[in-house]
């Protein structure tokens, strides 16, 4: 099974029960508004939030758990990794706090403990422990309107398409997260445009780790090639010096 979450923006009433459940389940400390917070409600102590948009639209924001996550591909110590269940999980024991994941994430999800001397990255882990026990993530459990549901990614995708097909005038004909950056595990169907969840220059459908692949695969050949090139130059220069020395020697 590939764990996934489908959020139906038209069903969300913005009651914030998911946020409360998340804080309770993950034992997140209380949170004060701080200058380093973004304006989307997420923070080191809020792993999910509701973004309000005009005309009573509430969009739940959380980690998208990409199928090919940029954060995982850039983490120099493999502190972030994709589990076989689907969620992208963080191992605080490996992290050294470089925050490259925050730079790389196309949705700007990972947050940081800016006010602590020992600071860690914080983000949604889709309640991986509960999933392993065969339960649902806390936020899903808490939702009173089933605006956000949990299940297998393929089944949820079929469900999303079914909803769009049944009520084509209600929804935008797009499942957000189906193809973006290679697909995400957190899907949205919506009646408003959700492009604001990602950065202004839209990510394509190409998985982000692929952008680095050619450069990273070139590393060993470049290393050897540079050595060989320099060896060649060294040999030529030494030889020229030697020949020149012999020439001068002959002259004398």
């Amino acid at each position, binding site marked *: 099974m590939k764990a996934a979450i489908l959020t139906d923006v038209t069903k969300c009433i913005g009651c914030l029960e998911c946020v*409360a459940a998340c804080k309770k389940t993950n034992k997140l400390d209380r949170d004060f508004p701080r200058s380093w917070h973004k304006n989307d409600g997420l923070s080191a102590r809020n792993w999910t939030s509701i973004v309000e948009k005009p005309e009573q639209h509430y969009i739940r924001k959380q980690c998208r758990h990409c199928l090919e996550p940029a954060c995982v591909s850039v983490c120099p110590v493999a502190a972030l990794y994709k589990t076989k269940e689907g969620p992208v999980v963080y191992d605080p024991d490996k992290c050294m706090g470089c925050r490259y994941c925050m730079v790389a994430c196309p949705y700007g999800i990972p947050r940081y403990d800016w006010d602590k001397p020992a600071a860690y990255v914080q983000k949604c882990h889709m309640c991986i422990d509960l999933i392993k026990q065969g339960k649902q993530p806390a936020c899903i459990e808490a939702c009173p309107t089933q605006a956000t549901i949990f299940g297998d990614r393929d089944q949820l995708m079929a469900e999303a398409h079914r909803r769009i097909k049944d009520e084509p005038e209600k929804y935008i004909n797009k499942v957000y997260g189906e193809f973006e950056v290679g697909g995400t595990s957190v899907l949205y169907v919506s009646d408003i445009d959700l492009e604001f969840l990602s950065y202004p220059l839209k990510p394509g459908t190409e998985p982000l780790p692929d952008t680095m692949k050619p450069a990273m695969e070139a590393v060993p050949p470049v290393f050897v090639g540079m050595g060989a090139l320099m060896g060649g130059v060294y040999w030529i220069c030494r030889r020229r010096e030697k020949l020149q020395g012999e020439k001068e020697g002959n002259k004398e």
Partner: protein
Amino acid sequence: MDRARIFKSILWAITGLGSAALATRFLIGLGAIANMNDAVPWGLWKGFNIFPGIALAGGGFVMTAIIYIMAREEYHKYAKISVLLAFLGYLTAATALVTELGLPWLVWHPIIFWQHHSPLFEVSWCVMLYLTVLFLEFIPVPLEETSRFAKIRIFLTKYKIVLVFLGIMISTLHQSSLGSMWLITPEKLHPLWYTSLLPILFFLSAVAIGPIMLILAILVITRIYRRRTDSQTLSKLGLLSVFGVLVYGLVRLIDIGVKGKFAMIFDGSWQSTFFLVEISLMVVIPLVLMGVRRLRNSSGSLWVASLSAVIGLGFDRANIAGIMLSVDGPMYTPTLFEVLVSLAIISAAILAFLFGIERFKIWDTKWEDPREKPESHPDFDRSAEVWLGTPRLAGRSVYSLIFVVSLAVGFAIIPGKRIYSDGVQEVVSQKAYGGDTLCIDGNRDNYGVTFDHKAHVVRNSNDSSCVLCHHMNQPNDKQSGCYSCHRDMYQTTDAFRHDWHADPANANIGCMECHAIDQERLATTAKACDQCHKDLIPPGATITIEKYMAPSYTDAMHFLCIDCHRQKAEELTDKPDLALCTTCHRWKHPNHLQDEVAEKYNHPYFNHVVLPQKGSKEKGH
């Protein structure tokens, strides 16, 4: 005072100021001195110290390649100084990295936790290895001062060429991988800078401008120590580097042309202006001043050209590593303390550089085998006209004094609000009487619920109605905000302070004052608050004390409104149905409320919620 001493005093002062900020960062956290935030996780230290620092230190591997591999004897006298410069350049970058890591003591983690897809993994390995290589390349110089470790020195000198090869190969990798790091951000980096050629561009610019950094360093120190500049060799080196600059400029512009982004350069946006400034500083000015023969030979144009190239390279890296990344959140401007830390790291490196120059035999014309002519190294430079440097210990007391004083000043100017909080922790409501329309914004995310306070007061028999809704249960309670008990949006809070009660009740012996001796000591079985505090609840108030947990802010506000409306709805029919979230939670931002509400906003009492003065300490609860 001589120039060198003034210069060094300034550097010591900056180092002292920055060290205070640095210490604060390690003791309290990044947020205490830096403006980096969730939207801009990498700040000045990455864009000003690390990326430009490593690029400019690239002079080390380029110069060793020119001297030892291409066997260009005329540059041999710059061999040691370029290695020292590179070593210190990498050290500044490493120091800045340790400063800005969240868990700096785990900086060695990439050694044991491998992740070969990550450019940063590769960079950290390479930087660690190259620092070692540079250290081994440089260590024979200080070892010449002592007769011990002669074997090590001779060994390292003998096999120097191996180190040179290793250095070049490692540098090629990480200089380019620093560019690869930004390939992951196609959706953030401005298209004028984002290209799949970033690794190649990073490598080329480091190769081209690394030696120019060396030229600048030599110009600076010859000026400080009032020495004659060997401008002929320098301009020759300049000409060599300008070829690199030309290649870099061509690759970059052709790449932009091929990708069809040429029009963006002249579209008049601020990004295009930055691009033009960057290209002129980095490519055009050095190309003209160092490329044209007549200009090249004057030391003035060497100064301008090398300064411009170095600043241009720094600007390029700063653009990629920060300025040109789109920000979805609070804007980032570095704080004074970030700037001070940045400058302090660089100042300390310059001090170390000057120390190296004064102390060791950096300036011999050839890296000779020390066994042959142990006494042949000139002290500084035989061509010097003026005796160089100050006596080794003469400046020590002056510098120490300057450092200590500036360290103290540095601590003094760090404001408390940065250390404790610059966010809002508690709301102290003032002038709560008579506020007409309140904006209840519990989590202060600027999405508030408007509440017609005046109408409620009038409806509930004016002044005597306060206690219907408000707690008045603390001594002189006129000002405590809801937040002083209901501290979190969602979590219930323990309103009972054990430590406050333990002392009056005779500390630990006094447990039995509240807890019965034969019962488990639980909040539910203890004596109720109002058994001692007789006047806790004012007459007429709707609240009851049932447990010691204050409800969360959300629950408190909701129950207060919803319960009352439910009761009233039985008597009156026109009450709005508060069971619907959207009755109160409108989407409008309070600053842009509809016109009829906006009128009420202008009432002098409207803004009754006064945020505490910035800098007020977070009170422990």
